[in-house]
């Protein structure tokens, strides 16, 4: 009796160093890590949800001013950034695939490609912020907004309402950019560890979960792009 119980307890200390002692199998450990990541993303949905909710309320109230303010933002850099992020999501998929197939150099390459695309996104974003700075469209003491309402040439947009649009613009894209900066840092760490050979087809949970994070940040931008850049463009 005693011997068999000892055997069970000893059997619980695994041969695989990547398998933590409180998990029975690698599959269970992976599922637990994945579920934890999805729960984190669920609270991220609520976190960004508050910003989207504020946007929705003010867009409902100040629709004309919001579309006048939205028209001062150039579509092209935003569209390019959307494409850049979609490409970076593909490189993340290819990185996870390389990890699953145990291809270390491919994994490092796709992680670095993701970092390059992430930095390209941030560079274009910085250029857009610079333009807003030059146009005095940054909320604060030097804010100035002199534009007509899109459908009424004689009526000026209310600058305070436009300022609310730009406050939300900077809060939402800024929070998104902060997530991108964290993501780039995370992928830099992963690329370093991958280069050292830490990740194999047996253990690549950090790659997979960081990939989930990156895709989530991409999804936030998929919604931000039409909401911020494309209000009432047909006028």
């Amino acid at each position: 009796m005693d011997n068999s119980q000892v055997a069970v307890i000893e059997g619980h200390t695994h041969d695989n160093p990547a398998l933590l002692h409180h998990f029975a199998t690698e599959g269970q450990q992976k599922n637990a890590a994945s579920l934890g990541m999805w729960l984190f993303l669920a609270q991220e949905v609520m976190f960004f949800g508050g910003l989207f909710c504020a946007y929705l309320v003010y867009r409902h109230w100040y629709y004309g001013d919001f579309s006048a303010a939205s028209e001062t933002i150039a579509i092209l850099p935003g569209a390019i950034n959307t494409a850049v992020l979609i490409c970076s999501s593909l490189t993340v998929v290819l990185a996870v695939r390389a990890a699953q197939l145990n291809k270390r150099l491919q994994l490092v390459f796709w992680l670095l490609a993701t970092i390059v695309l992430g930095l390209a996104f941030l560079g274009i974003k910085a250029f857009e912020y610079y333009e807003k700075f030059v146009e005095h469209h940054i909320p604060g003491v030097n804010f100035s907004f002199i534009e007509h309402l899109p459908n009424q040439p004689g009526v000026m947009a209310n600058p305070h309402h436009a300022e609310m649009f730009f406050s939300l613009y900077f809060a939402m894209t800024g929070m998104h950019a902060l997530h991108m900066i964290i993501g780039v840092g995370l992928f830099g760490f992963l690329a370093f560890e991958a280069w050292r050979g830490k990740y194999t087809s047996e253990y690549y949970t950090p790659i997979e979960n960081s990939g989930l994070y990156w895709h989530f940040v991409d999804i936030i931008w998929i919604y931000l792009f039409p909401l911020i850049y494309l209000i009432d463009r047909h006028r």
Partner: protein
Amino acid sequence: MANHSTTEHSTSEHISSIGSSITIWLILLVCTGITVGAAFIDLGPLNTVVALSIATFKATLVVLFFMHVKYTHERLTPLVIVSALFFLGLLLSLSMADFGTRGWH
């Protein structure tokens, strides 16, 4: 525990094929183009509906294929996603039910 070298046949791992990943990537890029194009066509209030529908379609593709949810055997993952969306919907719909119907504004 045995036979981990053949990951494709192990319990929860799905390895996406390069072909299907590139197909999804192309669909996402085309949808971005359609979103921009549709914004310049006057559809009245439907412009927002079309833009958000395309965005939701794109987000669904990313979740199902890029985030591997279509292939997961973990049943709790869809539950987490659905509950996140449910509470997001609650936040947005109840807030708008309040702010949208205030007479004093």
